[in-house]
């Protein structure tokens, strides 16, 4: 245990600073201040607490320089012997006189003790066993506040110096200021201009169709496989569509969802929408509404049903694999029991369905279906994912776990090329194309700007 010389708090062994007051705990040999009791590090000229000139104080007091004493908690070997021989600890003996308030207080404390120690004290003896050194080290400073002590000559001189400096008018000397570094970022004005330019680039293709921007993209094999997998199904077959995404990726994934639903409803398949994300239920509703508007022959409840949110992540997928009506007991839109929906007629476990379409916000959500349903039960799965997850999903298609992949707006536009009459995603793709070009131009311009600035700085440094 280490006792703080400032507040007396007991700190754990090895502590460097007091837990209570934050004072540095001197653990090595230290020099005690004869005035306030502060344990100063060896070699300290003035007391760190009261400012007393330690060397002078010891010279005037005991006639010998201050000697380091062991730390309170780690008495050195032989110190007990020294104490016993000299009667009092060395730092107490170095006090200036018996009139010293510190010495007087300690002696009074010791005299107040009863029993054998008191008798020994009266006889001029000292018993380190009866009175350990720790409380003695801790008591003096707590007993005397700095304000009650008279100022030392050093403190008086320092106060006079401070007062004289404060009385003088401060005259700032001209300093050679270095040129401030130019901030790396742009100011508010240029930033607003760039933001406005980007917003315009995204908005203009929506308002003013421009044929080159709406050119049809190439159709990747993964998209062709997805379209073919749906076309191979007989009309009326049930297909589970999982809307496992939220608003954060809806810009990239909603066109994919709409493209899938357009083909599913157009082909006469029964669509059972579920979601393992709470927001997916409303996004599914939006996609369903668009699909029903495009195919008036399809009816909600008969061709399409939205069973809403199924909680539980992996467990939810497993539950759907075991039984769709049990895992999602109600129609999200009407509130009716799902068992009464015509679209669910004859539908039991998802593992027995001919196709599952997973619209996943990322690879984690997609893997959930692949690992819990597609791979264990061999259910054919198509994936709709945002653009970043498109590359990551490719190995699963290569291994045969995925039948097809449609990634992002570009994938949706390619998908809709293979369907007659649906070109909605091309408008989104046009906006995306112009925005991407604008963003690329900004990146190039920013790099050129930085390069020019760097070259100028180098030239200026060379001339300087």
């Amino acid at each position: 245990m280490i006792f703080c010389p400032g507040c007396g708090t007991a700190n754990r062994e090895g502590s460097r600073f007091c837990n209570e007051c934050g004072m540095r705990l001197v653990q090595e040999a230290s020099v005690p201040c004869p005035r306030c009791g502060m344990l100063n590090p060896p070699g300290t000229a003035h007391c760190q607490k009261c400012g007393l000139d330690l060397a002078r104080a010891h010279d005037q007091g005991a006639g010998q320089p201050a000697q380091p004493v062991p730390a309170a908690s780690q008495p050195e070997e032989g110190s007990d012997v020294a104490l016993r021989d000299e009667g009092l600890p060395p730092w107490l003996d170095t006090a200036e006189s018996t009139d010293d308030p510190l010495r007087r207080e300690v002696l009074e404390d010791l005299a107040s003790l009863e029993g054998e120690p008191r008798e020994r004290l009266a006889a001029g003896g000292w018993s380190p066993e009866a009175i350990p050194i720790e409380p003695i080290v801790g008591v003096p400073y707590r007993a005397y506040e700095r304000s009650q002590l008279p100022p030392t000559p050093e403190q008086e001189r320092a106060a006079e110096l401070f007062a004289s400096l404060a009385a003088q008018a401060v005259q700032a000397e001209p300093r050679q200021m270095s040129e401030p570094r130019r901030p790396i970022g742009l100011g508010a004005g240029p930033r607003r201009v760039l933001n406005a330019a980007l917003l315009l680039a995204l908005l203009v293709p929506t308002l003013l169709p421009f044929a080159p921007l709406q050119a049809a993209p190439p159709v990747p094999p993964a998209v062709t496989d997805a379209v073919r997998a749906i076309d191979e199904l007989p009309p009326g077959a049930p297909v589970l569509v999982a809307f496992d995404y939220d608003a954060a990726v809806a810009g990239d994934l909603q066109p994919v969802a709409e493209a899938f639903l357009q083909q599913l409803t157009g082909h006469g398949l029964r669509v059972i929408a579920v979601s393992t994300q709470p927001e997916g239920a409303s996004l599914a509703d939006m996609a369903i509404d668009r699909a029903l508007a495009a195919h008036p022959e399809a009816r909600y409840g008969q061709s399409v049903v939205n069973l809403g949110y199924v909680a539980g992540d992996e467990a939810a997928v497993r539950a759907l694999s075991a039984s769709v009506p049990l895992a999602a007991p109600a129609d999200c839109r009407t509130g009716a029991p799902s068992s009464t929906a015509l679209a669910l007629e004859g539908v039991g476990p998802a593992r027995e369905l001919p196709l599952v379409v997973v619209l996943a916000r990322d690879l984690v959500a997609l893997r959930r279906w692949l690992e819990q349903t597609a791979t264990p039960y061999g259910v054919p799965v198509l994936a709709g994912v945002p653009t970043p997850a498109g590359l990551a999903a490719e190995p699963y298609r290569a291994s045969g776990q995925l039948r097809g992949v449609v990634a992002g707006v570009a994938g949706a536009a390619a998908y809709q090329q293979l369907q007659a009459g649906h070109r909605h995603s091309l408008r989104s793709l046009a906006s995306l194309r112009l925005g991407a070009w604008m963003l690329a131009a900004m990146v190039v311009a920013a790099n050129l700007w930085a390069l020019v600035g760097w070259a100028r700085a180098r030239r200026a440094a060379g001339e300087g």
Partner: protein
Amino acid sequence: MLPWPAVTAEGVGTWIAAAMTLLMLSAAWGESRASRLGMALLAGSAVGYAAAVAWHTVVWPRILLVRADPLAHWPLLVWFVLGVLLLARGLSSASWLSSISLGYLFGVGAALAVGGALMGTLVPQVRAAVGAVAPGDGGWAVANALILALATGGVLFRFAYTGWSGKGALGKAWARLVGAWGKLGYLFILVAMGALMAAIALMALALLAARLEFLAVDWLHLVAP
């Protein structure tokens, strides 16, 4: 400009959504009270919506099932009890009760996740990688497999083994080979990260474009849907 539709609940929702979108887009002009209000409303409404959906589609339908036929749906009562025990988390004296539910939750989740990752990803992907090149495959398949092997080994060496220093002539040669391979892997990492960043930027642009399209088409009816 197209004619405006009649005021319906859906129309009111569209106006609210448009106002929220404009609040968020105001951050493009600079962070302001409007954009901060938009963020706060977005976060609050998302949490509120999730709670409402959970009640509407998860809890309430099951309550109806139990009420209609308790004998047939008695297992649901067990899940209700487990769910109620979770509420004890907020009581210091009875918080231990929630450990039962949490233990079950984490146990089932971990079992499904680990088992699924092993049998649904690791084994099939290793099998597919091993069988990536069949004897009858053409040149492109072989080239793809070679690039895959080079990239995989290079990235592994870059991260784990490039610090090896071999002893003897053979060891030094191996160390040089591993070092060079690791540098190749570093290039693959750069290319992959660049492609990933570009894809993420495209996704963000797509989201922004979708919101602008919503404002122009669904809210202002400037063009036909």
